């Protein structure tokens, strides 16, 4: 207990600052995730067969095992 008491309490200013850092961390990470999603979807848009409807319709298989 004594040791804990020795630790200086964070001022309310410091606390706010910490929270802000955490918040901006989250925002940054979300931005990175969003960018990653955009990147992968852009990449896949490039390679997707052009006429989805026709392509899916014409994929006809015979049954196998």
């Amino acid at each position, binding site marked *: 207990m004594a040791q804990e008491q020795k630790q200086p309490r964070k001022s309310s200013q410091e606390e706010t600052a910490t929270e802000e850092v955490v918040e901006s961390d989250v925002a940054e990470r979300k931005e990175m995730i969003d960018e990653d999603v955009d990147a992968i979807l852009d990449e896949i848009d490039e*390679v*997707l*067969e052009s006429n*989805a409807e026709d392509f*899916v319709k*014409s*994929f006809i*298989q015979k*049954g*196998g095992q």
Partner: protein
Amino acid sequence: MSVRRVMGTEVEYGISVQGQPAANPMVASSQIVNAYASSTVRARRARWDFEEESPLRDARGFDMARQIADPTQLTDEDLGLANVILTNGARLYVDHAHPEYSSPEVTTPLDVVRWEKAGEQVMLDASRMAAQVPGSVPIVLYKNNTDNKGASYGAHENYLMRRSTQFAEIVRHLTPFFVSRQVVTGAGRVGIGQDGRDTTPERGFQISQRSDYFEVEVGLETTLKRPIINTRDEPHADPAVYRRLHVILGDANLAEISIYLKAGTTALVLAMIEDGFIDRDLTVEGAVRTLRDVSHDPTLKHLVTLRDGRRLTAVQLQMEYLELARKHVEDRLGSDADDQTLDVLARWESVLTRLERDPMECATELDWVAKLKLLQQYRDRDSLDWDDAKLHLIDLQYADVRPDKGLYHRLAGSGRIQRLLDDDTIEHAMHEPPTDTRAYFRGRCLDKYADSVAAASWDSVIFDLPGRESLQRVPTIDPLRGTKAHVGELIDRSDTAQALVAAITR
């Protein structure tokens, strides 16, 4: 007690002749196999030897009459369709209306991955080679299991088991495992029902490609009335000692960890069944319906009802098997357990724990989660309903074997799906056989004595030797003989097939 066991996989690939949906798939499949054969198989092409095949033998102890069998079940009749044996010990051939790659026999889950992925590269090369034939139309291959219009084709697993194990025990303990393992091994599918027509807004995606195509719990068929437990009893080994468990309900996986866990966890469960270790009855009420219900709920909340009245999720049911498998390995092997067995147990536990928390945590490991994540991202960005053709296209194209077009390959290539093996290791396995099964003997013979091998199969290599009137059949009935340790040196020092056969039959 370990993941080690003689096993192998067979994958039928979806096939599409670009711009010609009405093209004959048998002809196209033959073009694929023949293109690979003529470009890579040297000199004389060895035939497949059907002598030991008996597809109508039933594990329950009787033979089905040939007259009442569906023509698709008569897989031992040589219809003159393309059929070659590769130097890695695999078989590449046309099965029904699909090109199929049957891996060589291996003994570990990681080797299942290695030689199954080698098969994907064989198919890719084959389609590229076929495209070089003047006047040919490009053929694209898909490692999936359905056209979403009612047709399904298989990705089978084979596990060698002790004959002494009662088949009823296999059925009892394996069925609940099979009904639930799709949460780990599913490849993901857009569409509900055999023809994929049920795409009500909130249930357009399911975990498994195959689950909607199973109609009975136990049976011999593989092409109609498909059973959860297949009774085909064709061991390709001494039938007094072994049976080959032929598993037909699995999905064709692209993710290496999905394949690895499929083979590894199944091997662990089979070891427990052989050992009589499973001390509880996990029998599921209505296994066929449950198989579908589990597949139809990617939130993994569906409760499975056991015969004893307990209700638990498929993930929890898998955890029952995991807990038993852990105990079994500790009990029988203790600190002697091999690394791969421990790795399978650790990954299985990790995946199940995260699936229970949030399935999306497994998006870099498991096919169905990776696919669902991608689909969900498209749905969010473009506000797409599940019946949108674009989502069906993404499902299909996930399985395209081409590295530039296949979406699995795009995700793996950019590090969004984890790998277990590097490209070089897989490339090597396209040509080299496993060293610890009879596939070694088969593969080396095909490589070194191609001119003298008349035919081969899982359990024989048949030589046509100059000066000998009859063919010389070398049986390879024991899957664990003919390994590098047994015959490596002998083959190394035998310059000709005559010398080899003389040394073997001396």
